[in-house]
């Protein structure tokens, strides 16, 4: 498998307490990679490291086959970036922002930018400083898409936007991915939002990449099990036990990863019995994975 983004042992420290540590991240080519994590977990810092906006203290970053931050100019020419906070020049009008941005990209598609402006109902003569949050988000997405990037990096692109604008923006991203086979890295703390569009998930917590797996595995293999008469110590379990809640009675609740129906037989071999298998949605899975990671970290 080839990767559009790959990091190896990436480290970065900011201030006395925050650090991105030993980050090994792999974003496959032509995938939509959901970068999940609670607020303050280090998603934005990681994205800034990937794009060469920050310089790592150690480790290696490769984006679209080029080393970062050494090759930042050529990589950014092929990357559309929508940052977490508004960053465009507030004194420019929408029309001027389009011309300004387009002048930096040889791949800029002015006609498509015009289509997107119409689709998003943006007023070309309005100053950026007077746009609402939703309009600003749409404009940023227009700029990122019209440059026809091979890689789209979207840092909380829909945070704080109303559902209609969120839907419009995500629809535009999906349309782009379908048409151009681009790679998308999209960060969010809104788990349900990514569930529909991502085929890979990376979970970040406290500056560490806790887990990275295909969405399919995340969805299908993540279960809550109700088990009775389970031994204290499990031997050679065919799944990964992420959390174990013993409760007060004999029935325990387990959260497991890598579950397949054929694993039911395992419980008889350890003298336990499986009462129920419950599907977890992405948000529940996200919470359980975080909880398990925090327990492991102590």
């Amino acid at each position, binding site marked *: 498998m080839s990767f559009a983004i790959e990091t190896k042992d990436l480290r970065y420290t900011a201030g006395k307490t925050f650090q991105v540590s030993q980050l090994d991240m792999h974003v496959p080519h032509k995938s939509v990679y959901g970068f999940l994590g609670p607020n303050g977990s280090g998603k934005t810092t990681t994205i800034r490291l990937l794009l060469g906006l920050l310089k790592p203290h150690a480790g290696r970053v490769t984006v679209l086959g080029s080393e970062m931050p050494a090759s930042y100019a050529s990589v950014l020419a092929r990357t559309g970036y929508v940052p977490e906070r508004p960053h465009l020049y507030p*004194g420019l009008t929408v029309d001027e922002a389009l011309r300004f941005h387009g002048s930096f990209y040889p791949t800029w598609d002015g006609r498509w930018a015009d289509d997107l402006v119409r689709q998003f109902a943006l007023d070309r003569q309005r100053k950026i400083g007077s746009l609402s949050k939703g309009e600003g988000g749409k404009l940023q997405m227009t700029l990122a898409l019209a440059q026809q990037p091979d890689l789209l990096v979207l840092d909380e692109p829909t945070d704080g936007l109303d559902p209609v604008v969120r839907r419009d923006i995500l629809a535009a991203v999906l349309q782009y991915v379908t048409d151009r086979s681009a790679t998308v890295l999209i960060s969010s703390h809104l788990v349900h939002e990514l569930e529909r569009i991502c085929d890979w998930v990376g979970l970040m917590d406290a500056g560490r990449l806790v887990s990275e797996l295909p969405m399919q595995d995340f969805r299908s293999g993540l279960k809550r099990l109700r088990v009775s008469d389970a031994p204290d110590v499990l031997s050679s379990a065919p799944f990964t036990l992420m959390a174990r809640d013993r409760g007060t009675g004999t029935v325990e609740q387990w959260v497991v990863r890598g579950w397949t129906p054929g694993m039911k037989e395992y419980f008889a071999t350890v003298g336990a019995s499986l009462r129920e298998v419950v599907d977890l949605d992405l948000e529940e899975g996200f919470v359980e994975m975080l909880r398990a990671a925090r327990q492991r970290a102590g």
Partner: protein
Amino acid sequence: MLKAILWSQWKPTRGLVLITSIIAFALPVSSLTITSTLRAQEVTRVMQSYGALYPMLAALTGLLIAMAAWAPDHAGRHTYALSLPVTRSQYAGMRFIAGSAFIGVTAAALLVGTLIVAVAGAIPDGLHVYPVALTFRFALAAMVAYAIFFAISSSTSQTAGVILGVMASILLAQFVLAMMEVDFNLIEKVGEFLAYRPGLFSVFAGRWMLIDA
């Protein structure tokens, strides 16, 4: 790209350029109205007093245009500029060139004002008008001020720390010299070095005369 940078920078700068250009045009013209009935010696004296205003205007022009050059990027914490597909030096270079062009506008206004003095003014015998020399010097001084403030405004906190460190080192060295009772004024020497030829600020020092012998 440069055209786009020029336009994006012109918008927040144009008001400042207009103000400095009006002042630059008005200074020589107003000096002409005052000196029109005076004799040669009095004209020189008036021109000398006006001469202090030109370097001040040059420094102010450089400062304002430099601050305006980075204002949009500061507002967005430089995120947008850093995410554009150009090298940092190329981007800073284009911003610098754009600001330099705006200094040219103010300098051109000064040139027009001084040329009016040269053409319309009744210059007493023995005196000459130096419109081009004064304008050239003004442009050079404004560029020096612009370059310094542009660099400071664009610099990182690390660079600002280095500048402050150098200044602190000079003060500390002066303190040590004083403690050792060495008769050497380091601060004065540094000031002289910067203000007089070939110092960085020497263009601001000396006589700025539009009309002189």
